[in-house]
């Protein structure tokens, strides 16, 4: 018998550990929050880790979840033990194959980190709406609650499916379980072997398709027999509950942990019982234990096997004394009589008890990882006590619309005094989460204590706030909910002090550790009134450390994590100080040491050693002395909705919003990011007008639209703030105008891309440019006033701007501002630029991914409006269908144009022929024509307003369609090259006027760097840990083959004028246009500040040739817009960690792949060169722009 081995891991790893041992093939596709499971098995396979059959499993990434399910189905049919990992929409894409797999009685386990399905909004967080969609597939469904249970149930699922031949969904709560780190006993390989019967494995193989014993499976059946055949599987389903219980009993003997199909906890004579499954079980259990101890007759049933639902076993588990049962569902089925678990419980009880069935009520809780706490569970028990409890209710929210929510006392707590409960507020970039994960591991794996860690992230990628919730307890930690009564609160960034009410989580007497540049004598006065009040009222102990200084001395930059971690251990007393420091250092050695990181280890050690000395207790004065308040929520003068609703979310108080505050259909206003002043930069660019050459590059490249240029009438030079300097416009195109380059000081992320790109140099001091990074604190007040005034100056008349030039383009107002994308993002400059050209008439269908997250993740959106209130209108359908979604926009718009045109003709006598002809003939090809369209439509509406005819009313409703709309599909390479390629291909074939922007980061950026078919040969990515062996798919060429698709390959950092002209020509083309934009990304492992320069090298070495293919150019549609490659591909890749990693792990392979990649470049260039010499002839079905734009490099 193996020794008991305790590990501290998250639910994904707990699952992967079993899946890796029990499978021979895993076909996967990344989707949050399940990606980690596939990534781990892939990494283990790459490292040669074997399964229990002595082989290394084959882990393959597919093009979609539908593809993954198909591959799994095939692999199962060919006899391999096969699995996959997925969630949410991904699971939905697998459903067709799931029906097949179950119908063929094929044993397999799919591991699902259950996640919300996108409805009124996408959510990456956890609930059961995905797994509940699978109820009719015929799969067994086994739920895991705690991380230990997630681990154990994974193995039980394999043991059961092999015997039952019914496939199993093994599911657990997305994020809450998939990402919670907890101490568990890991099942050794011997235990796994003992649970997997080799006879059953052989039986599975024997059923495989085999030409030596051929069979026919997957027939088409007719009405005569389909029904009977469908019923033939019934005996197998009848046996499933018994088999699962048998395996649970076997497991109990083997391991010592006992499970049942339904586990009851609580008073033997309970009158109220909650039925619930997955991670909420631990929460309810804590409430039950406390309430029973307090003398209440309550209990709970944990549902382990949800399908097949064994009604008898359920009845047997329920005490006979029960009067009221509440079934709690973590899903919503609008229109149903109740949610699934409620209906199952009700049916089971009625079938068991007939007329003496206890009262059954059903409630929803925890949708999209909404907090579910013991207080809420107690609230439900209290509701059940009522004479007439709500039959259908919700808990955890305030429903002031349909009044379904039950009340609860938020102060009710089951937390024990001997549990250390700590909350840490950090920035993503400071390493707080990484250090806290380490802390949990240190305690969990080196002491008898149990440890739990859960990490909450905000919705922005740059300057994102992280909140770590840690518990350390002498007993196993059951409750999967956030810490709300912390006895330790740490603020890792002093910028939070004014923005976040951190101490609302502090319990009386807690320690509050603050990282601040203020010393122990001065720090008190830096705290807002509310914070001081809470420190005094709750008798908190205040500690301060200047972690910035300690980290600076240790050459750690902004990584203050180890300093704060050391202070935590010192103050919390979880471990003796010396022991804690030794473990912290061990963890540092483990993290960095094996990767040759001696220097990094030393620097971290220095930070640890410097921390204690820099830590000071602050003597708390007895009274509030502060002069300022917390300043959370929306800034500026927002509209009511923004102030009252979005503002609450900005202040991290969205949980307090009632149902009535929310839009009923998921529709939100745009232009809201301007009210979320996050002010995350430490340094900001300051303009030097004497050096500036007015090129506009800084404005063009800013990923956040936080530096802008305007040309304006000299009258605006006066009357502004004192420091509002402006200078004469230097060019000849706008004589007599003034100009200014202005930073948005609170919106800048300090990424430095503008400074790096600025071509102007100061003649006296060569290191200084026309914009220079300077400490924000020195300029904030002045630049705030300047920016406000700058915004008040009218933008230039669009019709007068020479928009096809670089600096002209930057005089157009961006209608995408202050995005929360990563600092230095390579995608957003393209998006911003496109909105500058077409934003006032754009409709965007956005594939799920980075661009949908920085574009549409609440609370605010960067898409905004011009002075007339016009701006991009935006929606996200799914990951896979942004092409079709945009195509649908086009169909609707064309139809509406047709309809409105018909009505125009019909009403021409009343409207006037001149206006009708003007509207029908104006094609909106230039800014002037579009301005004229707007003028005419306004005139039309005015005329129609005086008419009574229904046609006139209908025409008013459709008149706006007579202004040319610019239809766009946005997405990344994961969408365009992989999951959405089928739809994209159909659009190419259709030739309809949709503009497709592929923000090609060459990796699945949003889900953390998985390889796509755009990933270049030799690059290391997740699922390509050994370097991607195959070359990048040539998407542009595939589109060009149709002969009628405008295709442009662009790189803003390499040739901005080319990008500008190509974008404009693509939009002008009256057919399908495809723009493939080089977008650097964190996933490349590069310096994001200087990454635009790297694009120059990408083009120069031939890796990323710039070109455009214009089908309307009948003589020569294909133009290579760059010079013959001459730069070094090797030098280009050497600057990127994605390639460098391989060169340092497998140098020979890296060299081989680099050689092949060079051959790819040479061959492609040769082919493109031939293409550029060819004449076209087909003309396509797209029409040339009336004044076709010349696109040259």
């Amino acid at each position, binding site marked *: 018998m193996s020794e008991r081995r305790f590990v501290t891991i998250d639910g994904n790893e707990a699952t992967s550990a079993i899946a890796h041992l029990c499978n021979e093939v895993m076909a996967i596709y990344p989707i949050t929050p399940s990606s980690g499971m596939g990534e781990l098995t892939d990494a283990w396979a790459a490292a040669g880790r074997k399964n229990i059959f002595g082989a290394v499993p084959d882990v393959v990434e597919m093009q979609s979840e539908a593809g993954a399910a198909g591959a799994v189905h095939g692999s199962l049919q060919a006899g391999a033990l096969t699995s996959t990992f997925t969630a949410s929409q991904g699971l939905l894409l697998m459903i067709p194959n799931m029906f097949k797999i179950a119908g063929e009685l094929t044993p397999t386990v799919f591991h699902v980190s259950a996640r919300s399905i996108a409805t009124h909004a996408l959510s990456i967080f956890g609930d059961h709406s995905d797994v509940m969609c699978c109820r009719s597939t015929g799969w067994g469904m086994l739920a895991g609650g705690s991380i230990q249970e997630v681990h154990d149930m994974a193995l039980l699922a394999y043991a059961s499916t092999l015997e039952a031949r019914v496939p199993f969904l093994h599911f657990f709560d997305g994020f809450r379980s998939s990402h919670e780190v907890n101490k568990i006993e890991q099942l050794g390989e011997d235990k796994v072997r003992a649970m997997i019967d080799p006879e059953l494995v052989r039986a599975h193989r024997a059923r495989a398709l085999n030409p030596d014993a051929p069979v026919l499976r997957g027939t088409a059946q007719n009405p005569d027999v389909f029904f009977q055949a469908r019923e033939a599987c019934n005996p197998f389903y009848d046996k499933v509950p018994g088999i699962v219980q048998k395996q649970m009993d076997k497991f109990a003997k083997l391991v010592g942990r006992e499970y049942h199909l339904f586990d009851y906890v609580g008073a033997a004579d309970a009158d109220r019982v909650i039925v619930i499954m997955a991670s909420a079980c631990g929460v309810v259990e804590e409430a039950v234990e406390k309430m029973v101890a307090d003398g209440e007759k309550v209990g709970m049933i944990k549902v382990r096997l949800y399908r097949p639902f064994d009604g008898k076993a359920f009845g047997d588990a329920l005490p006979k004394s029960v009067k009221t049962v509440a079934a709690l569902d973590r899903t919503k089925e609008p229109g149903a009589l109740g949610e699934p678990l409620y209906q199952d419980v009700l049916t089971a009880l009625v079938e068991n008890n007939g007329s003496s069935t206890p009262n059954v009520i059903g409630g929803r809780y925890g949708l999209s990882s909404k907090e579910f706490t013991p207080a809420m569970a107690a609230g439900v028990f209290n509701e059940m006590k009522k004479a007439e409890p709500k039959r259908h209710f919700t808990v955890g929210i305030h429903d002031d619309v349909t009044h379904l929510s039950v009340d609860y006392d938020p102060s009710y707590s089951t937390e024990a005094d001997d549990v250390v409960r700590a909350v840490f507020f950090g920035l993503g970039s400071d390493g707080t989460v990484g250090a806290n994960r380490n802390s949990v591991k240190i305690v969990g794996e080196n002491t008898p204590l149990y440890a739990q860690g859960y990490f909450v992230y905000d919705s922005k990628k740059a300057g994102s706030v992280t909140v770590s919730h840690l518990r350390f307890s002498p007993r196993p930690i059951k409750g999967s909910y956030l810490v709300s009564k912390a006895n330790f609160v740490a603020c890792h960034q002093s910028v939070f002090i004014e923005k976040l009410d951190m101490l609302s989580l502090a319990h009386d007497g807690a320690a509050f550790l603050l990282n601040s540049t203020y010393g122990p004598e001065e720090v008190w006065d830096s705290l807002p009134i509310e914070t001081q009040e809470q420190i005094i009222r709750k008798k908190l102990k205040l500690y301060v450390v200047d972690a910035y200084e300690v980290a600076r001395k240790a050459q750690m930059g902004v990584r203050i994590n180890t300093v704060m971690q050391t202070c935590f251990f010192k103050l919390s007393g979880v471990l003796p100080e010396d022991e804690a420091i030794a473990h912290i250092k061990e963890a540092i050695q483990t993290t960095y040491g094996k990767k040759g990181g001696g220097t990094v280890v030393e620097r971290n050690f220095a930070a640890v050693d410097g921390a204690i000395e820099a830590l000071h207790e602050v003597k708390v004065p007895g009274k509030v002395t502060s002069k300022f308040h917390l300043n959370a929520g929306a800034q500026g003068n927002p509209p009511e909705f923004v102030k009252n609703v979005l503002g609450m979310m900005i202040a991290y108080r969205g949980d307090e919003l009632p149902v009535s505050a929310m839009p009923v259909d998921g529709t939100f206003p745009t232009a809201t990011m301007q009210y979320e002043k996050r002010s995350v930069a430490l340094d900001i660019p300051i303009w030097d007008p004497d050096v500036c050459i007015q090129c506009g590059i800084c404005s063009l490249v800013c990923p956040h639209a936080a530096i802008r240029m305007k040309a304006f009438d000299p009258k605006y030079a006066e009357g502004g703030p004192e420091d509002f300097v402006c200078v004469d416009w230097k060019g000849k195109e706008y004589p007599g105008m003034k100009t200014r380059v202005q930073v948005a000081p609170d919106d800048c992320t300090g990424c430095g891309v503008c400074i790096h790109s600025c071509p102007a140099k100061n003649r006296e001091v060569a290191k200084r440019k026309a914009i220079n990074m300077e400490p924000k604190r020195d300029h904030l007040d002045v630049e705030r006033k300047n920016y406000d005034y700058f915004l008040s100056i009218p933008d230039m008349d669009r019709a007068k701007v020479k928009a096809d030039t670089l600096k002209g383009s930057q005089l157009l107002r961006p209608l995408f501002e202050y995005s929360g994308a990563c600092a230095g993002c390579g995608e957003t400059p393209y998006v911003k630029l496109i909105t500058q050209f077409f934003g006032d008439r754009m409709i965007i269908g956005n594939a799920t991914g980075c661009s949908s997250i920085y574009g549409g993740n609440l609370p605010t959106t960067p898409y905004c409006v011009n002075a007339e209130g016009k701006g991009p209108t935006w929606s996200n359908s799914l990951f896979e269908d942004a092409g079709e979604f945009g195509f649908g926009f086009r169909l609707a718009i064309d139809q509406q144009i047709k309809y409105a045109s018909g009505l125009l003709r019909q009403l021409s006598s009343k409207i006037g022929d001149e206006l009708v002809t003007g509207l029908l003939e104006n094609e909106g090809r230039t800014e002037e024509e579009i301005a004229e369209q707007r003028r005419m439509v306004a005139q039309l509406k005015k005329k129609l307003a005086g008419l009574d005819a229904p046609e006139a009313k209908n025409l008013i409703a459709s008149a706006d369609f007579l202004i040319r709309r610019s239809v766009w599909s946005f997405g990344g390479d994961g969408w365009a090259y992989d999951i959405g390629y089928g739809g994209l291909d159909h659009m190419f074939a259709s030739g309809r006027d949709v503009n497709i922007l592929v923000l090609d980061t060459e990796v699945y950026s949003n889900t953390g760097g998985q390889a796509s078919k755009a990933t270049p040969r030799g690059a290391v990515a997740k699922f*390509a840990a050994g370097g991607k062996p195959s070359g990048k798919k040539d998407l542009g060429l595939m589109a060009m083959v149709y002969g009628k698709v405008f295709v442009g390959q662009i790189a803003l950092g390499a040739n901005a004028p080319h990008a500008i002209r190509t974008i404009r020509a693509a939009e002008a083309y009256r057919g399908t246009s495809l723009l493939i934009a080089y977008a650097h990304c964190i996933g490349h492992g590069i310096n994001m500040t200087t990454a635009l320069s790297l694009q120059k090298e990408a083009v120069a070495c031939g890796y990323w040739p710039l070109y455009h293919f214009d089908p309307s150019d009948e003589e020569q549609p294909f133009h290579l817009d760059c010079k013959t490659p001459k730069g070094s591909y090797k030098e280009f890749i050497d600057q990127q960690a994605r390639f460098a990693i391989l060169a340092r792990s497998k140098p020979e392979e890296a060299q081989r792949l680099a050689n092949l990649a060079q051959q790819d470049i040479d061959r492609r260039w040769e082919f493109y060169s031939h293409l550029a010499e060819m004449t076209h002839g087909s003309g396509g079905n797209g029409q040339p722009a009336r004044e076709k734009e010349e696109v040259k490099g």
Partner: protein
Amino acid sequence: MSVDLSTKYLGLLLKNPLVVSACPLTQKLDVLKQIEEAGASAAVLPSLFEEQIQHEEVEIAKAREFGTHSFAEALTYFPEQDDYRAGPESYLEFIETAKKSVSMPVIASLNGTSEGGWVRYAKLMQDAGADALELNVYFIAADLDMTAEDVEKQYLDLVRAVKQSVSIPLAVKVGAYFSSMGNMAKRLVAAGADGLVLFNRFLQPDIDLDDLETLPQLDLSTRSELLKPLRWIAILHGRINASLALTSGLHESTDLAKALLAGADVGMVASVLYTQGIDHLSEILSGLRRWMEEKEYDSVEQLKGSMSQENCPDPAAFERGNYMKALVSFTGEAI
């Protein structure tokens, strides 16, 4: 008549006094083999730089950590890899491979300016099979508050730290910018140097007139550079208990002969191999042999140091005599 070209350097018995100094040529295995075939008695591998070690470690850690644990969907951006090797590891592997591929001694080279964790690579180089270690100390004292004493202490501390971590012979390669080069040489030996390599050549920054950027510039050496190390080797020979290697400006056999006469145990070449090819090594050696035969020297040991300051007819020449002699020859009479 045959001459004995063998020499002893850093305690290593070398078949001749011609060694290839640290340069990119020696980092290629096929070139290393050519070097041996062409007759070189040893080769110094390219330097592993303190800055390179630290930069590699820090940058890779930074690239892998940047953006991680910031956003719920993308907690990391790269797959976990345990077999990742920062630059130094591949350098160590190269030492092992080189040792297996050539029979001549292989001297590893470490380049740094201050004590620190990176010094552990000295031991790792020894473990990888290096026959000796060359510590190239390259320090530009740009801090105006740093005194000459501070700088010298830093050198000595570093030499001591490296010496303590290895048992193989240690050569120290320095520049000539010391107020008292001879005293510094003595102290370096006292700190643990088994040999001195004189002198290293500094990379000098140039200015790009178009971009107004600085450009690193390192030109190939010229023969005129030979005279400086020649002088100091002549001064040091016989007065310190350490091997001496002359490097910089050694291009021809006559240069090597002069180096040996001055007191060098070996002469090192690199730049000339770029212009003349690897086979030039054999020409230098045959030239040396020819010259020795003509002058009837039996062995390198015999001629070594015979023109050192101690042994030359005019010791003052190595102090200021050359200058006086130049003036005398110009004016016709001594000043």
